[in-house]
């Protein structure tokens, strides 16, 4: 198990290094000049050149990369070019906000998706199966900005049941914060429910048809024991992998949701920093999403290996 973990960790570090190279090169490929973005379109070209020099963005790319990654390794994320505040301050707040929203969405959609998938598989071909599959699929294909507007109009403007802004007032207690995050989490539930339910359904259907399930039933085990101990244990493995891959999206990919619900998460931070060519902020945000994503997949690997001993023992490779 330890060897498995070390190997996964080493792979994660290599992935992060590759990500750092890609994000560095990609951010420098964005059109426009950093000094110009900071000083505005009407600034004198000499001021722009002086500022570019002061910021060091006119140095060779390799030197800039070495300086940046060196600072990164020493936990110095630099200062935002646009907002003149430490990147760590903005990033810390953004990450915390994204984690909160991600967690609420996760807590809502995972049980719902699993339950939907299991019910659909157990009632295969019946009305419940069809309903769950069709509703799930339909909800998945509705773009987030459409579902967000509809939900805001219904629950926020017409019924006035839920706040339309995800950001709770400062010093709000956890329950109030949760109250503010329910509506923004709903479009995510709509997007992910069908996906998780479908994967779960497929896994459960496959497990139900498997020989070991038939054996368990013939052994005379109760239906409940067969489902929990034999079917779900095997059926949930692909679901765990799918759920883990959604973590990166839930933490760093919610630009639309964050804009629609006026929430300062990582998604908006990424979007704004890319728009404004705020390199330190952009690069640190991408790296943070990378770390979150790799941590989630690592945790999923561990969970997967606990459910499936072949993985941790190297049998699957």
């Amino acid at each position, binding site marked *: 198990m330890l060897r498995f973990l070390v190997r996964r960790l080493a792979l994660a570090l290599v992935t992060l290094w590759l990500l750092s190279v890609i994000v560095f090169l990609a951010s420098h490929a964005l059109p426009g000049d950093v000094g*110009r973005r900071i000083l505005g*379109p009407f600034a004198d070209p000499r001021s722009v050149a002086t500022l570019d020099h002061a910021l060091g963005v006119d140095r060779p790319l390799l030197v800039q990369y070495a300086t940046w990654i060196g600072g990164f390794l020493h936990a110095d994320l630099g200062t935002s070019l*646009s907002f003149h505040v430490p990147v760590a301050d903005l990033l810390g707040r953004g990450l915390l906000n994204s984690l909160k929203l991600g967690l609420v969405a996760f807590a809502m959609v995972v049980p719902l998706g699993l339950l939907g998938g299991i019910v659909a598989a157990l009632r295969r071909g019946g009305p419940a199966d069809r309903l769950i599959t069709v509703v799930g699929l339909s909800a998945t294909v509705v773009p987030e900005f459409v579902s967000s507007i509809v939900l805001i109009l219904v629950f926020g403007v017409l019924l006035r049941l839920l706040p339309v802004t995800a950001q709770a007032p400062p010093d709000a207690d956890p329950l109030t914060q949760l109250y503010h995050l329910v509506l923004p989490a709903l479009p995510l539930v709509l997007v992910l429910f069908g996906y998780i339910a479908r994967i779960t359904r497929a896994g459960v259907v496959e497990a139900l048809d498997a020989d070991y399930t038939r054996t368990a039933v013939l052994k005379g085990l109760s239906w409940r024991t067969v489902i929990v101990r034999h079917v779900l244990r095997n059926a949930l493995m692909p679901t765990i992998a799918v759920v883990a891959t959604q973590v990166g999206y839930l933490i760093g990919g919610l630009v639309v949701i964050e804009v*629609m619900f*006026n929430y300062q998460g990582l998604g908006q931070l990424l979007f704004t920093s890319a728009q404004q060519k705020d390199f330190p902020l952009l690069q640190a945000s991408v790296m943070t999403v990378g770390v979150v994503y790799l941590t989630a997949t690592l945790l999923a690997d561990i969970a997967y290996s606990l459910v499936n001993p072949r993985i941790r023992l190297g049998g699957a490779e």
Partner: protein
Amino acid sequence: MDRESQRRLDAIRRRRTDLENNAIDELLLGRVSRRQFVRAGTVLGLSLPTLNAILAACSASSSGTTSGGQVKKGGRITIGHQTPSGAMDPLLTADLGRLTILGLAGEYLAFSDRDLKLRPVLAESWSPNGDGSVWTFKIRQGVKFNDGSPMSVDDVVATFNRLADPTIHGNNALSNFAGVLTKGNVTRVDASTVKFQLDGPNGNFPYLVSSDNYNAIILPASYSGNWDKTFIGTGPWKMTSYSVNQSVSFQRSPYYWDSTNVPPLDGIDIRFYADEQPAILAFQAGSLNMLSFFSVRTGQALLTDPNTTVIDIQTTSHRQVHMRTDQPPFDSKLVRQALAYAVDRQSLISGLWNGKAQIGNDHPIFKMFPSSDPSVAQRPYDVSKAKSLMAQAGKAAGFGVTLYTEQVGEIPDLAALVQAAGKAIGITINLNVTDSGTYYDKYWLDSPLGITDYGHRGVPNTFLAAPLLGGKLGTWNAAHFDDPDYDALFKDYVKAIDLSAQRAATGKIEQLLLDQTPLIIPYNYDALTAVKKNLVGVETTGMGHLNLRRAGLTS
């Protein structure tokens, strides 16, 4: 005018300067409206009571702009506002997101209101020398910053010498002061008087130190940056918390100098929105008492909402369609005129702005400027004339060209409509629409045809200078327009102090620009603010300031 009115007017006129009497003559002769007279009078330093006395003597009445309603003491309001595009710093501010916030915490020497009149704020009065090259301002005494420290003449002197300093990175005020005011030429005369020695005569200088200049809030002489930690200023509001990109909260400043105008509200919470749609939804859902500014395109529903008061004010914000005059195909003025005649402005105004815009006449001296010349005819929509101009220019077969512009507001739609106008007269226009940063970086000043956004100004000086002057002063001259006659007329306009002299120049400028057509200016559009019915006393300006000193909740 009856004898008594004449007697009162004569008494007032005896105490006035030649310039001020000239303005009164303009009013009596009917060459300026009451509104234009008040505005011109405020520039010359006439106090509002004096202006009202003159208007009363001339049997004209003055009207206020405040909203009605029984305001209760106390309470807080929440405002949805555009996210600031950068660090909160008065020196760097170049966008609405930051400007509005500056104007809540800070104050200017004068406030340029919705009618383009100047109201004294931190300056009590001002006056020019004979040719308008030296302006002297009397500074209000007893004013305190929102940290309790007193404001003095030295703070005013330091603020303006700082704003005229070309060595400060990103010093945005240079767009107003370059060629007008040199660092070191703002000096203290005595404990209540400041003198501005200008680089040359300038009849509209008070506007450049008013709220029309984004950056000109008065800061302490010792200010050295990090404004976002303190939000220091002399305004009625004191910052209590600020979260970058998220929100800022203010409470009523206990040190506010104007005891007769203490705000009824206890505080203001401002939430920043990166996009307009969610702000409008939050306003409709009741999360916001006010939406500082919204566009017709996104906020159509608010215009007919019975629970919403929409404050609609005319501004000089506009779009400029530039055509490069120094290279084919737009080096012929006939071709430029042809495209201008092919644009159906009334359709643009109704289609893109739902009527909330005023027709433009291809020069930036908009009708709301008192110095505009009403005798200059409006360019009509005339496709057959456009076609004949194309034929005269030898371009009857048409040509192809690319129009470059930015993804801002309705501009992409305007670009498509200009494309359609071109098609009607044989010009095939390809569109290249990029984000704003890329447009300004790569295309703005080098494109054969482009569309650029211009924000509101209280006087046309900036519009007439940077986008149209030849040589070094034409820093935003995307049309590469270079006409010595125009440059000479511009100089005449700038140094003119009284309205009739300004009009003598603007009439010629308007005719020249209509003839040469380096720019198509199809419209100038209104600023819209949405306010819940129970919030009254809100004052907005074309520049984007929110005056909330008299704002309060009714119940």
